[in-house]
């Protein structure tokens, strides 16, 4: 099984974000991490490789710092990486990002392409589905289980409210992976050492420029959301907070 995992580097979950001088984007002096659903997608690919043999390739687009995501993936067991390296990739919308990926992998022959179901920065949940359409492949989203069978694969789609659905699909296919599909592994020291020798192919913007176009949507205004809720802070020592809260629960909220 030859599997491509599309990964993204996003600001750390608890990173305090500030707008830059022009308020066009955030100030980049924050810590970054791998987009969590993508880590689950990588883990699933590694498990499928362990089960069926094959190759796991990871790809990302972004500035030099995003290579960290690829290095960590290689350390965990991915075989090689593709880095579309340019600051300009950060501003591409999902359609252009998918087009850039499709262009970068045009000479490869993958059986499966995984993405995380959505990213923690934009949260659009589109790139994987768009990529499937561009490649002309079937796809399924929000996947919680995957099994190979004679006609292709059987996946378990997560639906709302605790419902699920199995879907049989042919290969090749694109799947967007849900968090919690598996348990993430840690990179071993040996893995980290071996990662240094694994190839990272750099793809410049110029190589994929002809495949992408202008963004079809534009962030006109990025801002700190105006709070509509009136929040009362309860302060003091834990004992004082307990008394104040219980007072509210009893007299204002009437739940005691």
């Amino acid at each position, binding site marked *: 099984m030859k599997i491509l995992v599309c990964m993204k580097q996003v600001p750390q*979950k*608890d990173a305090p*974000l500030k707008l830059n001088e022009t308020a066009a984007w955030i100030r980049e002096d924050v810590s970054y991490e791998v987009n969590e659903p993508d880590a689950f997608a990588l883990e699933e690919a590694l498990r499928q490789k362990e089960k069926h043999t094959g190759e796991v390739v990871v790809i990302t687009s972004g500035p030099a710092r995003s290579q960290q995501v690829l290095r960590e993936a290689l350390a965990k067991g991915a075989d090689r990486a593709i880095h579309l390296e340019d600051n300009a990739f950060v501003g591409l*919308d*999902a359609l252009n990002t998918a087009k850039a990926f499709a262009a970068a992998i045009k000479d490869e022959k993958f059986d499966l392409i995984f993405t995380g179901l959505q990213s*923690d*920065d*934009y*949260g*659009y*949940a*589109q790139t994987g*589905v*768009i990529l*499937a*359409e561009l490649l002309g492949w079937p*796809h*399924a*989203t929000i996947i919680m289980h995957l099994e190979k069978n004679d006609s292709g694969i059987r996946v378990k*789609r*997560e*639906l*709302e409210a*605790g*419902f*699920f*659905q199995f*879907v049989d699909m042919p290969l090749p296919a694109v799947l967007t992976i*849900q*968090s*919690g599909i598996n348990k993430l592994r840690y990179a071993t020291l040996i893995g980290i050492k071996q990662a240094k020798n694994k190839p990272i192919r750099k793809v410049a913007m110029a190589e994929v420029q002809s495949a992408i176009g*202008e*963004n*079809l*949507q534009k*962030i*006109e*205004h*990025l*801002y*700190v*959301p105006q*709070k509509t*809720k009136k*929040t*009362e*802070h*309860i*302060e003091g020592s*834990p*004992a004082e*907070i*307990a008394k104040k*809260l*219980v007072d509210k*629960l*009893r007299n204002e*909220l009437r*739940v*005691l």
Partner: protein
Amino acid sequence: MPDTILVVVEQREGKLNRVSWETITAGQAVAAATGWTLEAAVVGGTASTFAAEVAAKKVAKVYAVESPKLEPYTPDAFAAALKQLITAKQPKLVLMPHTYQVRDFVPKLATAMGRAVISDCIGFKHENGKLLFTRQMFQGKLAADVSFASDAPWFATFQNGAFRGDKAEAGTAVAPVETVNADIADGVVRNKPQEVFKEAKQAVDLTQAEVIVAVGRGIKEQKNIVIAQQLADALGADLAASRPICDNGWLPMDRQIGSSGQTVAPKLYLALGISGAIQHIVGMKGARTIIAVNKDTEAPIFEIADYAIVGNLFDIVPPLTEEVKKVKAGG
């Protein structure tokens, strides 16, 4: 001729998904702001059986897009059928609810038409003749007003709860219904879906709980959940959790609150060590009163909390539990 807005409603298991009424409300609001005409579409094997309910709302027209190939749902069939409808009727703006099913096909549909989707919007603005869609970024830490930079059709999806379904205006007369037979060739549909099923035995129905105590990653370890359980017991509340807690197996799946779990609107929701990721918030933002405890003063949960306690839940919760017990015992 004014431009049209097309709301694509969702039907599920023989019933209209009630989140569709929220999208109708949204469509009516955009129509009122822009002067555009509002139409709706239902898609399915027997879409016309659902059309009458939609036609009772204040919409100019309802399309019932039908084909046996549309049952059960597959992204191939839905994208093909809607591409035909949209190509024929040429709406300016296509609106849908941001459901798991819509997420599964609308990016495919838009891409097939060379267009874009602005997804998971929480509202819109109409400023200087320009339509902007507001959405959350970075799990709610920032907001963005986004415009389309392409020709029509434009596609946008709205987050659950962004509009009120009960505010969808009824029509003064029943709107005309046009049945459209979708022409889906053999071989277009590649996925073979099986029956939808519920996995967890629903031991607890959190939608009926008056008070909920919910834990998130801040609880750190499974053995600490007892701290929250004790508070829940003292309050006579139900225990719930954000997704990561259930993924770890620390609490069963039927305790999950959020887009993948249950959506609740209790009298009181106590969020302990929950950061407030969008996927969780959509499941509980309807609670009458929200109390949040989190040591991160920037946690997005505080944006929607009525009462905020910035602090370590391990310091805050045990004394709170004791105080609740004391007061209940008549202290």
